[in-house]
């Protein structure tokens, strides 16, 4: 190359760079301007109780976004409906997050009572044994209340409009050959009372030791388990389809003591159990999964808990 080549090279670098800036930085700003959707979050929902906008700043200051994401994806089962581009218009700086060390918080609002949230922030392990979330007990009361308010605005009623978002894997659904064959073999009417009665017997024999006679997840065995058995009276389970129940019962919950019942029970027995399980979820339970089901005044009023109650290291006896 001669001296001229360098000049060409420099021009090359500069123009390449600007083409790229143009296409990936400027063009999206011009072309991509989603309108706010009804489900966007403008942090006004809880404004009566605290200051969610300030809570958001606390969220950023405490770096919650390093462990928590804020967007749901097509394949996520437990986080509610998919987000839309317009949901984010008021999110600056964005809190999409990069790692799901903890659960997604897109639709966190209303999932737990504020009291729980506060206890969880003060000492996560007091309400979730084995959790690795750091304790944020050093937050001042005001910070904590605003942060909880912010958490309660997340999702802004997105959950309320959507019902069945928990779905079994495809091989249990009619749409695949395997699932179709499964349904062909099934001759139990899971909606009939008789089947539920039959299921109750099987449940008492097999499941009650852990899940409890009243299915509240408090059977005698549960004492010794770190991951407590599921509480089927939670309204959350109302959205479970037959296939979802069947899938969970058959394959168990990896990482917990919940067995793979397909090894011990026949398909028929499992369908009977499903018929019974379906009858269990109740309307009222401490945990609620949609913001609409909470009485806003009752629920959002912030707790009077003192830190001591949840603080293993300071005060109180262990």
């Amino acid at each position, binding site marked *: 190359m001669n001296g001229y080549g360098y000049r060409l090279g420099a021009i090359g670098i500069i123009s390449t760079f600007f083409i790229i800036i143009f*296409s990936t930085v400027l063009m999206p700003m011009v072309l*991509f301007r989603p309108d706010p959707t009804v489900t966007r979050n403008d942090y006004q929902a809880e404004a009566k109780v605290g200051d969610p906008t300030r809570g958001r700043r606390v969220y950023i200051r405490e*770096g919650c976004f*390093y*462990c928590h994401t804020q967007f749901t*994806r*097509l394949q996520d089962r437990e986080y509610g409906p998919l987000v839309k581009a317009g949901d984010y*218009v008021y999110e600056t700086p964005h809190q999409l997050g990069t790692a799901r060390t903890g659960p997604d918080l897109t639709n966190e609002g209303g999932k737990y009572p504020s009291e729980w949230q506060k206890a969880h922030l003060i000492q996560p392990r007091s309400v979730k044994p084995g959790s*690795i979330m750091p304790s944020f007990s050093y937050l001042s009361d005001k910070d904590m209340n605003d942060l909880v308010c912010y958490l309660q605005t997340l999702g802004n009623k997105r959950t309320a409009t959507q019902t069945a978002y928990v779905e079994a894997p495809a091989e249990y659904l009619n749409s695949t050959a395997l699932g179709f064959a499964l349904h062909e073999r099934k001759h139990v009417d899971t909606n009939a009372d008789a089947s539920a009665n039959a299921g109750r017997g099987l449940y008492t024999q097999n499941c009650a030791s852990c899940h409890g006679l009243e299915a509240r997840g408090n059977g005698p065995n549960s004492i010794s388990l770190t991951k407590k058995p599921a509480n089927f009276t939670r309204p959350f389970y109302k959205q479970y389809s037959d296939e979802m129940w069947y899938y969970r019962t058959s394959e168990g919950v990896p*990482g917990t003591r919940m067995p793979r019942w397909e090894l011990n029970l026949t398909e028929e027995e499992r369908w009977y159990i499903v018929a019974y399980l379906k009858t269990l979820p109740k309307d009222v339970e401490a945990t609620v999964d949609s913001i609409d089901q909470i009485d806003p005044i009752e629920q959002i009023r912030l707790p009077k808990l003192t830190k001591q109650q949840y603080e293993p290291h300071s005060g109180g006896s262990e």
Partner: protein
Amino acid sequence: MSGLLDKFLSNGEGSASRNFLVSALLWSLFGMGAGVFASMEFYNPDLVHNIPQFSMPHLRMFHVNAVTIGWLSMGYIGSMFHMVPTLCKNRLFSERLGNFTMWAWNLLMIGAFCTLLNGNTEGREYAELGAVLDVMAAIALCTVTFNVLMTVAHRRTKKLYVSLWYFLGSLFWFPLVYIIGQRTFVFLPGLNDAIIGWFYGHNILGMWFTTVGVGIMYYLIPRYTQAPLYSHGLSMLGFWGIALFYAPTGTHHILQSPVPEWLKAIAVISSIFLLVPVLTVLTNFFMTMKGKWGQGADDLPLRFAMTSALFYLMTCLQGPFQATRWINWYIHFTQWVVGHAHAALLGAFSFILTSAVYYALPRLTGREWHSQGLIRGHYWLKFIGFLIMYFSLTVAGLVQSAGWAMGIAVDQWANQLYPYWFVRAISGIMIVTGQAMFCYNAYRSLYSPRPVDVTAKTREVKV
């Protein structure tokens, strides 16, 4: 007065470079220490209690900034200040300006230390620093660019060696990327903020750490092996490939969010095209190394550089692989990605920078390394430590995504990761120990009042 001036803004040849490298070593200890501290809190979340400065997210912010802005960037600038004058056969344009930048940069890092540990952050990953510090970093970067550009402009050689292309390119576009990426003074709606955020988040890697790191590799490998570079043409191909394909890839970090599809398509395609520059660069290195691999047994800095090249290959094969939608849906959000980030910054670029420090410090100061044994120990601790960390994170990521694909809630499944957190903390301790040995070695070689018993290797200027 002039005594004080000379003390702080020394005009001695190579002093800016030396001071930059030494500060980089100092900050590396802070940065890696914060990292290993945070990793222990993953295993034992109640390790420290009620101290906001030591809560895991604050440590993590500081860890990332200290290793990227502190250790890697300062080290890179120090290496450039040594390599550019050597390649141009003249002196650095202004040592005083270089030393001034060095102080400014250290001040910036002290600012980062004080703010990030208290959570004073902008809340944007990789762009956490607050407004004042952003401005400082931008100005410091521009002075570095100016200094290096003027050095090249006054060069006494005709040809520009590839390394110079890489350095100049990086110094041209990185200040721009930095300024665009900080978004300090603009207010963009959510997803646009994310798009630009990842434009920056990926390009601090692609257009700064990669390009300067590769430039350093191009400088070091022919010197270590005393062999001419295999092909100048290939190296230019690699350079233009990186310049073309790296910048638009950022959106592959948010492939599954509702950003425009065309942007995702551009990101995925250019991510895959990145294989071209990476493979050309590495072919060039490996062909240069041909028949000389054995030298790595005795020549420890060369061994660091070889390891770096191999990890670079690994990272860059992994990158395009996980940028495709088919893989990304499965491993996104998991610890796999954290492993990948460490493979790039720790495996590839930290190793090449270490090699550069081992190479440059004796030539800058005229003092041999205090102990070869410590270098050897450093190598093995860091190498094995890194491998353990990489595999524990990668496997943890696969375990996570397997659980999620089964429909298990994240909060239940998180408990499965304890063994991996534990192993990672151990590997972190190994890496920090290695780095501490490195720093101790540097300290002993530079500051112990030892007669200079070795004939100093002066800078050789043959290319």
